[in-house]
Protein backbone atom coordinates (compact mmCIF):
# COMPACT_ATOMS: atom_id res chain seq x y z
CA UNK A 1 0.00 0.00 0.00
CA UNK A 2 1.39 3.38 -0.88
CA UNK A 3 0.22 6.87 -0.09
CA UNK A 4 -0.05 9.95 -2.26
CA UNK A 5 2.94 12.33 -1.97
CA UNK A 6 0.63 14.90 -0.42
CA UNK A 7 -0.30 12.68 2.55
CA UNK A 8 2.99 13.18 4.50
CA UNK A 9 2.41 16.96 4.39
CA UNK A 10 -0.97 16.41 6.03
CA UNK A 11 0.73 14.10 8.53
CA UNK A 12 3.30 16.70 9.59
CA UNK A 13 0.54 19.33 9.69
CA UNK A 14 -1.58 17.12 11.97
CA UNK A 15 1.32 16.32 14.31
CA UNK A 16 2.26 20.01 14.58
CA UNK A 17 -1.38 20.98 15.16
CA UNK A 18 -1.75 18.36 17.92
CA UNK A 19 1.44 19.55 19.59
CA UNK A 20 0.50 23.24 19.39
CA UNK A 21 -3.11 22.77 20.53
CA UNK A 22 -1.96 20.53 23.39
CA UNK A 23 0.57 23.14 24.54
CA UNK A 24 -1.95 25.96 24.40
CA UNK A 25 -4.58 23.86 26.17
CA UNK A 26 -2.44 22.71 29.11
CA UNK A 27 -0.75 26.08 29.67
CA UNK A 28 -3.45 27.43 32.04
CA UNK A 29 -3.39 24.24 34.13
CA UNK A 30 0.31 23.63 34.73
CA UNK A 31 1.19 27.22 35.59
CA UNK A 32 0.34 28.98 38.86
CA UNK A 33 -2.63 31.34 39.03
CA UNK A 34 -2.24 34.38 41.25
CA UNK A 35 -4.81 37.06 40.61
CA UNK A 36 -3.66 40.65 40.32
CA UNK A 37 -5.68 43.33 38.59
CA UNK A 38 -2.63 45.10 37.17
CA UNK A 39 -1.44 41.88 35.57
CA UNK A 40 -4.51 41.70 33.33
CA UNK A 41 -4.20 45.28 32.08
CA UNK A 42 -2.52 46.04 28.77
CA UNK A 43 1.22 46.31 29.30
CA UNK A 44 2.53 49.80 28.65
CA UNK A 45 5.74 49.89 30.63
CA UNK A 46 4.01 50.66 33.92
CA UNK A 47 1.90 53.68 33.03
CA UNK A 48 -1.91 53.59 32.98
CA UNK A 49 -2.81 51.90 29.68
CA UNK A 50 -4.28 54.07 26.95
CA UNK A 51 -7.99 53.38 26.52
CA UNK A 52 -8.60 50.99 23.62
CA UNK A 53 -11.71 51.12 21.47
CA UNK A 54 -13.47 47.77 21.21
CA UNK A 55 -12.25 45.89 18.16
CA UNK A 56 -8.72 47.20 17.84
CA UNK A 57 -9.20 50.82 16.82
CA UNK A 58 -7.69 52.53 13.81
CA UNK A 59 -4.25 52.25 12.27
CA UNK A 60 -2.43 54.07 9.46
CA UNK A 61 -3.89 53.63 5.96
CA UNK A 62 -0.32 53.02 4.79
CA UNK A 63 -0.60 49.38 5.87
CA UNK A 64 -3.60 48.82 3.59
CA UNK A 65 -1.64 50.27 0.68
CA UNK A 66 1.25 47.91 1.35
CA UNK A 67 -1.14 44.97 1.44
CA UNK A 68 -2.66 45.98 -1.90
CA UNK A 69 0.77 46.40 -3.50
CA UNK A 70 1.66 42.98 -2.14
CA UNK A 71 -1.30 41.44 -4.00
CA UNK A 72 -0.16 43.00 -7.29
CA UNK A 73 3.36 41.64 -6.95
CA UNK A 74 2.29 38.30 -5.57
CA UNK A 75 0.12 37.74 -8.62
CA UNK A 76 3.08 38.71 -10.77
CA UNK A 77 5.14 36.05 -8.98
CA UNK A 78 2.42 33.44 -9.44
CA UNK A 79 2.45 34.14 -13.18
CA UNK A 80 6.25 34.15 -13.32
CA UNK A 81 6.69 30.70 -11.73
CA UNK A 82 5.10 28.53 -14.44
CA UNK A 83 6.86 30.61 -17.07
CA UNK A 84 10.19 30.09 -15.31
CA UNK A 85 9.69 26.34 -14.97
CA UNK A 86 8.93 25.90 -18.67
CA UNK A 87 11.36 28.60 -19.78
CA UNK A 88 13.54 26.17 -21.71
CA UNK A 89 10.65 25.06 -23.91
CA UNK A 90 9.21 28.49 -24.60
CA UNK A 91 12.07 30.11 -26.54
CA UNK A 92 12.01 33.65 -27.92
CA UNK A 93 8.22 33.88 -27.88
CA UNK A 94 8.10 33.27 -24.11
CA UNK A 95 10.85 35.81 -23.52
CA UNK A 96 9.04 38.59 -25.42
CA UNK A 97 5.71 37.76 -23.76
CA UNK A 98 7.29 37.98 -20.33
CA UNK A 99 9.02 41.29 -21.16
CA UNK A 100 5.59 42.68 -22.08
CA UNK A 101 4.07 41.34 -18.85
CA UNK A 102 6.84 42.61 -16.57
CA UNK A 103 6.78 45.92 -18.46
CA UNK A 104 3.04 46.30 -17.79
CA UNK A 105 3.46 45.69 -14.08
CA UNK A 106 6.46 47.99 -14.10
CA UNK A 107 4.29 50.88 -15.36
CA UNK A 108 2.03 50.46 -12.31
CA UNK A 109 5.11 50.20 -10.11
CA UNK A 110 6.64 53.41 -11.54
CA UNK A 111 3.30 55.20 -11.06
CA UNK A 112 3.10 54.15 -7.40
CA UNK A 113 6.72 55.18 -6.90
CA UNK A 114 6.18 58.66 -8.44
CA UNK A 115 2.98 59.24 -6.48
CA UNK A 116 4.88 58.50 -3.26
CA UNK A 117 3.09 55.25 -2.52
CA UNK A 118 6.37 53.61 -1.54
CA UNK A 119 7.49 56.39 0.80
CA UNK A 120 7.11 55.69 4.48
CA UNK A 121 7.16 59.01 6.32
Amino acid sequence: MSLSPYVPIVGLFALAALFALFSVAIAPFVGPRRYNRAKLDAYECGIEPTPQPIGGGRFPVKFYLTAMLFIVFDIEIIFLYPWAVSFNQLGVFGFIEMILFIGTVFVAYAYVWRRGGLDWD
Partner: protein
Amino acid sequence: MKPLAQDPTLNDFGHDPWWIVLIKVVVVFAFLVVMTLFAIWYERRVVARMQVRPGPNRNGPFGLLQSLADGLKLAFKEDIMPKLADKAVFFIAPVISTVCAFTAFSIMPFGPVVSLFGHKTPLQLTDIPVAVLLVLACSGLGIYGVVLGGWASGSTYPLLGGLRSSAQMISYEVAMGLSIVAVFMTSGTMSTSGIVAAQAGSDTHWGPITAPSWYAILLLPSFVIYFVSAIGETNRAPFDLPEAESELVGGFHTEYSSLKFALFFLAEYINMVTVSALCTTLFLGGWRAPWPISLWAGANSGWWPMLWFTIKILLLLFVFVWLRGTLPRLRYDQFMRFGWKVLIPANLIWIVALSGIKTLQKSDWDGTKRTMVVVGVVILLLIVALVWPSKKEPEKLTVADQIAARPDGSFPLPPLDLVVPVNPRAKRITASREEPVTVGAPDDSTGPKEA
Protein backbone atom coordinates in the same frame (compact mmCIF):
# COMPACT_ATOMS: atom_id res chain seq x y z
CA MET B 1 31.57 11.60 -11.48
CA LYS B 2 29.32 10.08 -8.84
CA PRO B 3 26.53 7.83 -10.10
CA LEU B 4 23.37 9.89 -10.34
CA ALA B 5 21.02 6.92 -10.45
CA GLN B 6 20.34 7.03 -6.73
CA ASP B 7 19.18 10.63 -6.95
CA PRO B 8 15.53 10.70 -6.02
CA THR B 9 13.19 12.21 -8.58
CA LEU B 10 9.55 13.14 -8.31
CA ASN B 11 8.52 9.62 -9.34
CA ASP B 12 10.24 8.16 -6.27
CA PHE B 13 7.84 9.82 -3.89
CA GLY B 14 4.45 8.57 -2.83
CA HIS B 15 5.46 4.89 -2.68
CA ASP B 16 6.20 4.68 1.05
CA PRO B 17 4.02 2.46 3.22
CA TRP B 18 2.20 4.21 6.05
CA TRP B 19 4.66 3.21 8.77
CA ILE B 20 7.61 4.76 6.92
CA VAL B 21 5.61 7.95 6.46
CA LEU B 22 4.88 7.92 10.18
CA ILE B 23 8.56 7.44 11.08
CA LYS B 24 9.58 10.25 8.72
CA VAL B 25 6.95 12.64 10.09
CA VAL B 26 8.10 12.04 13.66
CA VAL B 27 11.77 12.37 12.67
CA VAL B 28 11.22 15.67 10.85
CA PHE B 29 9.21 16.97 13.81
CA ALA B 30 11.93 15.94 16.25
CA PHE B 31 14.63 17.37 13.98
CA LEU B 32 12.91 20.77 14.00
CA VAL B 33 12.39 20.82 17.76
CA VAL B 34 15.97 19.75 18.47
CA MET B 35 17.29 22.23 15.90
CA THR B 36 15.33 25.00 17.63
CA LEU B 37 16.70 24.11 21.07
CA PHE B 38 20.17 23.86 19.59
CA ALA B 39 19.86 27.08 17.56
CA ILE B 40 18.85 29.11 20.62
CA TRP B 41 21.88 27.84 22.54
CA TYR B 42 24.08 28.28 19.46
CA GLU B 43 22.94 31.85 18.93
CA ARG B 44 23.50 32.78 22.56
CA ARG B 45 26.95 31.21 22.61
CA VAL B 46 28.06 32.75 19.33
CA VAL B 47 26.78 36.22 20.10
CA ALA B 48 28.37 35.96 23.56
CA ARG B 49 31.70 35.07 22.00
CA MET B 50 31.37 38.10 19.71
CA GLN B 51 30.76 40.30 22.75
CA VAL B 52 33.66 38.75 24.69
CA ARG B 53 31.62 37.01 27.38
CA PRO B 54 31.08 33.29 28.01
CA GLY B 55 27.35 32.90 27.34
CA PRO B 56 25.24 30.09 28.86
CA ASN B 57 27.66 27.43 30.12
CA ARG B 58 26.12 26.00 33.29
CA ASN B 59 23.32 23.56 32.41
CA GLY B 60 24.68 20.43 30.80
CA PRO B 61 27.91 20.12 28.81
CA PHE B 62 28.82 23.55 27.36
CA GLY B 63 25.41 24.77 28.56
CA LEU B 64 23.67 22.71 25.89
CA LEU B 65 20.65 22.04 28.09
CA GLN B 66 20.07 25.73 28.75
CA SER B 67 17.32 26.13 26.15
CA LEU B 68 15.58 22.96 27.35
CA ALA B 69 15.61 24.37 30.87
CA ASP B 70 14.24 27.68 29.59
CA GLY B 71 11.46 25.89 27.71
CA LEU B 72 10.46 23.91 30.80
CA LYS B 73 10.52 27.07 32.88
CA LEU B 74 8.16 28.74 30.39
CA ALA B 75 5.75 25.81 30.69
CA PHE B 76 5.39 26.38 34.42
CA LYS B 77 4.84 30.12 34.23
CA GLU B 78 1.48 31.74 34.74
CA ASP B 79 -0.66 31.88 31.61
CA ILE B 80 -2.01 35.44 31.50
CA MET B 81 -5.07 36.34 29.46
CA PRO B 82 -5.28 40.15 29.25
CA LYS B 83 -8.64 41.70 30.13
CA LEU B 84 -9.16 43.28 26.71
CA ALA B 85 -7.96 40.30 24.67
CA ASP B 86 -10.14 38.61 22.09
CA LYS B 87 -10.05 35.21 23.78
CA ALA B 88 -10.49 32.78 20.88
CA VAL B 89 -8.10 34.58 18.53
CA PHE B 90 -5.59 35.07 21.34
CA PHE B 91 -5.57 31.29 21.81
CA ILE B 92 -5.40 30.31 18.17
CA ALA B 93 -2.71 32.78 16.94
CA PRO B 94 0.36 30.94 18.31
CA VAL B 95 -1.07 27.67 16.98
CA ILE B 96 -1.31 29.13 13.45
CA SER B 97 2.28 30.37 13.61
CA THR B 98 3.67 27.06 14.84
CA VAL B 99 1.71 24.79 12.52
CA CYS B 100 2.67 26.82 9.44
CA ALA B 101 6.32 26.83 10.50
CA PHE B 102 6.37 23.04 10.89
CA THR B 103 4.47 22.28 7.68
CA ALA B 104 6.83 24.36 5.57
CA PHE B 105 9.65 21.94 6.35
CA SER B 106 7.89 18.89 4.95
CA ILE B 107 9.50 19.10 1.49
CA MET B 108 13.14 19.67 2.51
CA PRO B 109 15.47 17.06 1.00
CA PHE B 110 17.85 15.56 3.58
CA GLY B 111 19.60 13.07 1.31
CA PRO B 112 19.49 10.44 -1.41
CA VAL B 113 17.66 7.12 -1.49
CA VAL B 114 18.55 4.94 1.50
CA SER B 115 17.43 1.61 2.77
CA LEU B 116 15.19 1.81 5.84
CA PHE B 117 14.30 -1.58 7.41
CA GLY B 118 14.77 -3.21 4.02
CA HIS B 119 12.61 -0.66 2.26
CA LYS B 120 14.21 1.75 -0.24
CA THR B 121 13.06 5.30 0.37
CA PRO B 122 14.40 8.83 -0.23
CA LEU B 123 15.70 10.74 2.79
CA GLN B 124 12.98 13.30 2.41
CA LEU B 125 9.50 13.41 3.88
CA THR B 126 7.87 14.05 0.53
CA ASP B 127 8.23 16.00 -2.67
CA ILE B 128 5.57 17.53 -4.89
CA PRO B 129 5.75 19.38 -8.23
CA VAL B 130 5.14 22.71 -6.46
CA ALA B 131 7.35 22.07 -3.44
CA VAL B 132 8.93 25.54 -3.17
CA LEU B 133 5.52 27.15 -3.54
CA LEU B 134 4.42 25.19 -0.46
CA VAL B 135 7.17 26.82 1.59
CA LEU B 136 6.15 30.27 0.40
CA ALA B 137 2.49 29.50 1.09
CA CYS B 138 3.25 28.34 4.62
CA SER B 139 5.36 31.38 5.42
CA GLY B 140 2.57 33.53 3.97
CA LEU B 141 -0.04 31.87 6.18
CA GLY B 142 2.28 32.13 9.17
CA ILE B 143 1.85 35.91 8.98
CA TYR B 144 -1.75 35.40 10.12
CA GLY B 145 -0.47 34.10 13.44
CA VAL B 146 1.62 37.22 13.97
CA VAL B 147 -0.97 39.80 12.92
CA LEU B 148 -3.86 38.08 14.71
CA GLY B 149 -1.77 37.66 17.86
CA GLY B 150 -0.94 41.35 17.83
CA TRP B 151 -4.52 42.38 17.14
CA ALA B 152 -6.14 40.05 19.67
CA SER B 153 -3.99 41.25 22.56
CA GLY B 154 -6.11 44.38 22.90
CA SER B 155 -3.09 46.52 23.63
CA THR B 156 -1.25 49.25 21.75
CA TYR B 157 2.25 47.89 21.43
CA PRO B 158 1.27 44.43 20.19
CA LEU B 159 -1.14 45.96 17.65
CA LEU B 160 1.60 48.18 16.22
CA GLY B 161 4.12 45.35 16.34
CA GLY B 162 1.75 42.96 14.56
CA LEU B 163 1.01 45.52 11.83
CA ARG B 164 4.68 46.24 11.35
CA SER B 165 5.51 42.54 11.18
CA SER B 166 2.84 41.79 8.64
CA ALA B 167 3.81 44.73 6.41
CA GLN B 168 7.46 43.74 6.69
CA MET B 169 6.86 40.06 6.04
CA ILE B 170 4.65 40.54 3.00
CA SER B 171 7.04 43.11 1.52
CA TYR B 172 10.00 40.81 1.88
CA GLU B 173 8.04 37.79 0.76
CA VAL B 174 7.64 39.51 -2.62
CA ALA B 175 11.41 40.01 -2.85
CA MET B 176 12.02 36.42 -1.74
CA GLY B 177 9.53 35.01 -4.23
CA LEU B 178 11.05 36.98 -7.10
CA SER B 179 14.61 36.01 -6.19
CA ILE B 180 13.98 32.29 -6.70
CA VAL B 181 12.46 32.70 -10.17
CA ALA B 182 15.99 32.53 -11.61
CA VAL B 183 16.51 29.15 -9.90
CA PHE B 184 13.39 27.73 -11.54
CA MET B 185 14.49 29.12 -14.90
CA THR B 186 17.83 27.39 -14.64
CA SER B 187 16.69 24.08 -13.16
CA GLY B 188 13.36 23.82 -14.98
CA THR B 189 11.58 22.40 -11.95
CA MET B 190 10.01 23.50 -8.68
CA SER B 191 10.49 20.23 -6.81
CA THR B 192 13.24 20.46 -4.22
CA SER B 193 14.79 17.09 -5.05
CA GLY B 194 14.86 18.10 -8.71
CA ILE B 195 16.62 21.38 -7.90
CA VAL B 196 19.27 19.54 -5.86
CA ALA B 197 19.79 17.09 -8.72
CA ALA B 198 20.04 19.95 -11.23
CA GLN B 199 22.88 21.49 -9.21
CA ALA B 200 24.95 18.30 -9.39
CA GLY B 201 27.12 16.96 -12.11
CA SER B 202 28.30 20.03 -14.01
CA ASP B 203 31.22 21.07 -11.82
CA THR B 204 33.84 23.36 -13.29
CA HIS B 205 37.45 22.27 -12.87
CA TRP B 206 40.23 24.79 -12.42
CA GLY B 207 43.29 22.57 -12.15
CA PRO B 208 43.09 20.73 -8.82
CA ILE B 209 40.27 22.91 -7.52
CA THR B 210 36.70 22.03 -8.40
CA ALA B 211 34.16 24.82 -8.23
CA PRO B 212 30.77 23.37 -7.38
CA SER B 213 27.97 24.12 -9.81
CA TRP B 214 25.91 25.64 -7.04
CA TYR B 215 23.33 28.21 -7.96
CA ALA B 216 24.86 30.50 -5.33
CA ILE B 217 27.77 30.97 -7.75
CA LEU B 218 25.87 30.69 -11.01
CA LEU B 219 23.07 33.01 -9.91
CA LEU B 220 24.91 35.17 -7.38
CA PRO B 221 22.48 38.16 -7.47
CA SER B 222 19.54 35.84 -6.74
CA PHE B 223 21.42 34.31 -3.82
CA VAL B 224 22.24 37.68 -2.28
CA ILE B 225 18.68 38.98 -2.68
CA TYR B 226 17.26 35.73 -1.31
CA PHE B 227 19.41 35.87 1.80
CA VAL B 228 18.70 39.53 2.53
CA SER B 229 14.96 39.04 2.12
CA ALA B 230 15.10 35.86 4.20
CA ILE B 231 16.46 37.93 7.09
CA GLY B 232 13.61 40.41 6.61
CA GLU B 233 11.10 37.60 6.33
CA THR B 234 12.16 36.00 9.61
CA ASN B 235 12.26 39.32 11.48
CA ARG B 236 15.91 38.96 12.40
CA ALA B 237 18.42 41.69 13.22
CA PRO B 238 19.17 44.12 11.57
CA PHE B 239 15.57 43.89 10.33
CA ASP B 240 13.98 42.99 13.68
CA LEU B 241 11.72 46.03 13.67
CA PRO B 242 8.62 44.20 14.96
CA GLU B 243 10.50 43.43 18.14
CA ALA B 244 12.35 46.74 18.39
CA GLU B 245 12.65 46.75 22.17
CA SER B 246 13.29 50.47 22.38
CA GLU B 247 10.08 51.28 20.48
CA LEU B 248 7.58 48.45 20.89
CA VAL B 249 8.59 46.52 24.04
CA GLY B 250 8.29 43.01 22.54
CA GLY B 251 6.20 43.63 19.44
CA PHE B 252 3.27 41.36 18.72
CA HIS B 253 3.99 38.95 21.58
CA THR B 254 4.23 41.55 24.36
CA GLU B 255 1.06 40.25 26.06
CA TYR B 256 1.88 36.58 25.62
CA SER B 257 3.31 34.45 28.39
CA SER B 258 3.91 30.83 29.28
CA LEU B 259 3.61 28.17 26.55
CA LYS B 260 1.84 30.50 24.12
CA PHE B 261 4.92 32.70 24.10
CA ALA B 262 7.08 29.60 23.77
CA LEU B 263 5.14 28.61 20.64
CA PHE B 264 5.81 31.98 19.01
CA PHE B 265 9.47 31.62 19.92
CA LEU B 266 9.54 28.10 18.49
CA ALA B 267 7.90 29.29 15.27
CA GLU B 268 10.45 32.07 14.86
CA TYR B 269 13.39 29.70 15.20
CA ILE B 270 11.82 27.05 12.97
CA ASN B 271 11.32 29.74 10.34
CA MET B 272 15.02 30.57 10.60
CA VAL B 273 15.92 26.92 10.12
CA THR B 274 13.46 26.66 7.22
CA VAL B 275 14.81 29.64 5.28
CA SER B 276 18.34 28.36 5.87
CA ALA B 277 17.38 24.89 4.66
CA LEU B 278 15.63 26.34 1.61
CA CYS B 279 18.70 28.48 0.90
CA THR B 280 20.88 25.36 1.16
CA THR B 281 18.56 23.46 -1.17
CA LEU B 282 18.12 26.16 -3.77
CA PHE B 283 21.57 27.74 -3.84
CA LEU B 284 24.15 25.69 -1.94
CA GLY B 285 23.77 22.29 -3.57
CA GLY B 286 21.35 20.85 -1.01
CA TRP B 287 22.57 17.71 0.75
CA ARG B 288 25.54 17.19 -1.63
CA ALA B 289 28.98 17.36 -0.10
CA PRO B 290 31.09 20.43 -0.97
CA TRP B 291 34.27 20.07 -2.96
CA PRO B 292 37.06 18.68 -0.72
CA ILE B 293 34.69 16.13 0.84
CA SER B 294 33.10 15.18 -2.48
CA LEU B 295 36.43 13.67 -3.57
CA TRP B 296 35.58 10.80 -1.23
CA ALA B 297 33.40 8.47 -3.28
CA GLY B 298 30.96 7.62 -0.50
CA ALA B 299 30.25 11.23 0.49
CA ASN B 300 26.99 11.55 -1.42
CA SER B 301 25.46 8.19 -0.58
CA GLY B 302 23.87 6.59 2.42
CA TRP B 303 23.19 8.66 5.54
CA TRP B 304 26.16 11.04 5.25
CA PRO B 305 24.27 13.71 3.27
CA MET B 306 22.14 14.46 6.34
CA LEU B 307 25.35 15.62 8.02
CA TRP B 308 26.38 17.92 5.16
CA PHE B 309 22.85 19.32 5.01
CA THR B 310 22.83 20.06 8.75
CA ILE B 311 26.29 21.62 8.61
CA LYS B 312 25.23 23.92 5.78
CA ILE B 313 22.15 24.97 7.77
CA LEU B 314 24.30 25.68 10.83
CA LEU B 315 26.72 27.78 8.77
CA LEU B 316 23.83 29.87 7.47
CA LEU B 317 22.46 30.20 11.02
CA PHE B 318 25.90 31.42 12.03
CA VAL B 319 25.61 34.19 9.42
CA PHE B 320 22.22 35.14 10.94
CA VAL B 321 23.83 35.45 14.38
CA TRP B 322 26.85 37.21 12.95
CA LEU B 323 24.62 39.90 11.40
CA ARG B 324 22.81 40.28 14.70
CA GLY B 325 26.07 40.72 16.54
CA THR B 326 27.42 43.25 14.03
CA LEU B 327 24.75 45.50 12.58
CA PRO B 328 22.53 48.12 14.21
CA ARG B 329 18.80 48.02 13.60
CA LEU B 330 17.42 49.91 10.61
CA ARG B 331 14.74 52.57 10.81
CA TYR B 332 11.34 51.41 9.58
CA ASP B 333 11.12 53.79 6.60
CA GLN B 334 14.68 52.89 5.51
CA PHE B 335 13.78 49.24 5.77
CA MET B 336 10.59 49.46 3.71
CA ARG B 337 12.31 51.68 1.15
CA PHE B 338 15.08 49.12 0.78
CA GLY B 339 12.59 46.33 0.20
CA TRP B 340 10.33 48.08 -2.28
CA LYS B 341 12.74 50.40 -4.08
CA VAL B 342 15.93 48.34 -4.21
CA LEU B 343 15.25 44.62 -3.87
CA ILE B 344 12.15 44.37 -6.09
CA PRO B 345 13.39 46.40 -9.10
CA ALA B 346 16.81 44.77 -8.87
CA ASN B 347 15.07 41.39 -8.93
CA LEU B 348 12.94 42.24 -11.97
CA ILE B 349 15.91 43.63 -13.91
CA TRP B 350 17.97 40.56 -13.05
CA ILE B 351 15.20 38.20 -14.21
CA VAL B 352 14.81 40.06 -17.51
CA ALA B 353 18.57 40.19 -18.07
CA LEU B 354 19.03 36.51 -17.27
CA SER B 355 16.18 35.38 -19.49
CA GLY B 356 17.54 37.61 -22.27
CA ILE B 357 21.01 36.07 -21.98
CA LYS B 358 19.58 32.56 -21.92
CA THR B 359 17.33 33.21 -24.92
CA LEU B 360 20.31 34.65 -26.81
CA GLN B 361 22.43 31.58 -25.98
CA LYS B 362 19.77 29.19 -27.20
CA SER B 363 18.86 31.04 -30.39
CA ASP B 364 20.45 29.91 -33.64
CA TRP B 365 21.58 33.41 -34.58
CA ASP B 366 25.15 33.92 -35.76
CA GLY B 367 27.76 36.06 -33.99
CA THR B 368 27.00 39.31 -35.82
CA LYS B 369 23.32 39.25 -34.94
CA ARG B 370 24.06 38.50 -31.30
CA THR B 371 26.58 41.35 -31.09
CA MET B 372 24.05 43.69 -32.67
CA VAL B 373 21.41 42.72 -30.11
CA VAL B 374 23.83 43.28 -27.22
CA VAL B 375 24.98 46.65 -28.64
CA GLY B 376 21.35 47.64 -29.17
CA VAL B 377 20.47 46.86 -25.54
CA VAL B 378 23.49 48.83 -24.28
CA ILE B 379 22.54 51.86 -26.45
CA LEU B 380 18.95 51.64 -25.20
CA LEU B 381 20.16 51.59 -21.57
CA LEU B 382 22.43 54.59 -22.22
CA ILE B 383 19.53 56.55 -23.74
CA VAL B 384 17.35 55.72 -20.73
CA ALA B 385 20.15 56.78 -18.38
CA LEU B 386 20.55 60.09 -20.29
CA VAL B 387 16.89 61.07 -20.23
CA TRP B 388 16.28 59.83 -16.68
CA PRO B 389 14.86 62.79 -14.76
CA SER B 390 17.28 63.96 -12.13
CA LYS B 391 15.85 64.56 -8.72
CA LYS B 392 16.00 68.18 -7.62
CA GLU B 393 16.44 68.72 -3.91
CA PRO B 394 14.57 71.81 -2.68
CA GLU B 395 17.04 74.46 -1.53
CA LYS B 396 17.44 74.68 2.22
CA LEU B 397 16.23 78.06 3.53
CA THR B 398 18.05 79.80 6.31
CA VAL B 399 16.14 80.61 9.48
CA ALA B 400 15.89 84.30 8.53
CA ASP B 401 14.43 83.41 5.10
CA GLN B 402 11.95 81.05 6.68
CA ILE B 403 10.77 83.80 9.03
CA ALA B 404 10.45 86.21 6.09
CA ALA B 405 8.46 83.67 4.12
CA ARG B 406 5.83 83.29 6.81
CA PRO B 407 2.35 84.43 5.74
CA ASP B 408 0.75 87.38 7.49
CA GLY B 409 -1.19 86.53 10.59
CA SER B 410 1.05 83.68 11.68
CA PHE B 411 1.62 83.24 15.37
CA PRO B 412 4.18 85.65 16.81
CA LEU B 413 7.74 84.57 17.20
CA PRO B 414 9.96 85.47 20.11
CA PRO B 415 13.18 87.27 19.19
CA LEU B 416 15.58 84.61 17.94
CA ASP B 417 18.73 86.16 19.35
CA LEU B 418 19.70 83.57 21.91
CA VAL B 419 23.43 83.13 22.14
CA VAL B 420 24.40 79.85 23.70
CA PRO B 421 27.20 80.47 26.19
CA VAL B 422 30.20 78.27 25.77
CA ASN B 423 30.38 75.51 28.33
CA PRO B 424 33.40 76.27 30.52
CA ARG B 425 34.14 72.57 30.89
CA ALA B 426 34.13 72.02 27.14
CA LYS B 427 36.55 74.95 26.80
CA ARG B 428 38.99 73.44 29.22
CA ILE B 429 38.90 70.06 27.49
CA THR B 430 39.49 71.63 24.07
CA ALA B 431 42.30 73.74 25.48
CA SER B 432 44.04 70.80 27.08
CA ARG B 433 43.71 68.83 23.84
CA GLU B 434 44.91 71.55 21.53
CA GLU B 435 47.68 73.24 23.49
CA PRO B 436 50.40 71.40 25.30
CA VAL B 437 50.15 72.13 28.99
CA THR B 438 52.62 74.85 29.89
CA VAL B 439 54.22 74.87 33.28
CA GLY B 440 52.84 77.61 35.50
CA ALA B 441 49.69 78.16 33.51
CA PRO B 442 47.06 79.71 35.84
CA ASP B 443 44.40 76.95 35.38
CA ASP B 444 46.76 74.09 35.51
CA SER B 445 47.28 73.81 39.22
CA THR B 446 43.59 74.13 40.18
CA GLY B 447 42.04 72.03 37.44
CA PRO B 448 41.23 68.36 37.99
CA LYS B 449 43.99 66.03 37.16
CA GLU B 450 43.47 63.97 34.08
CA ALA B 451 42.95 60.31 34.81
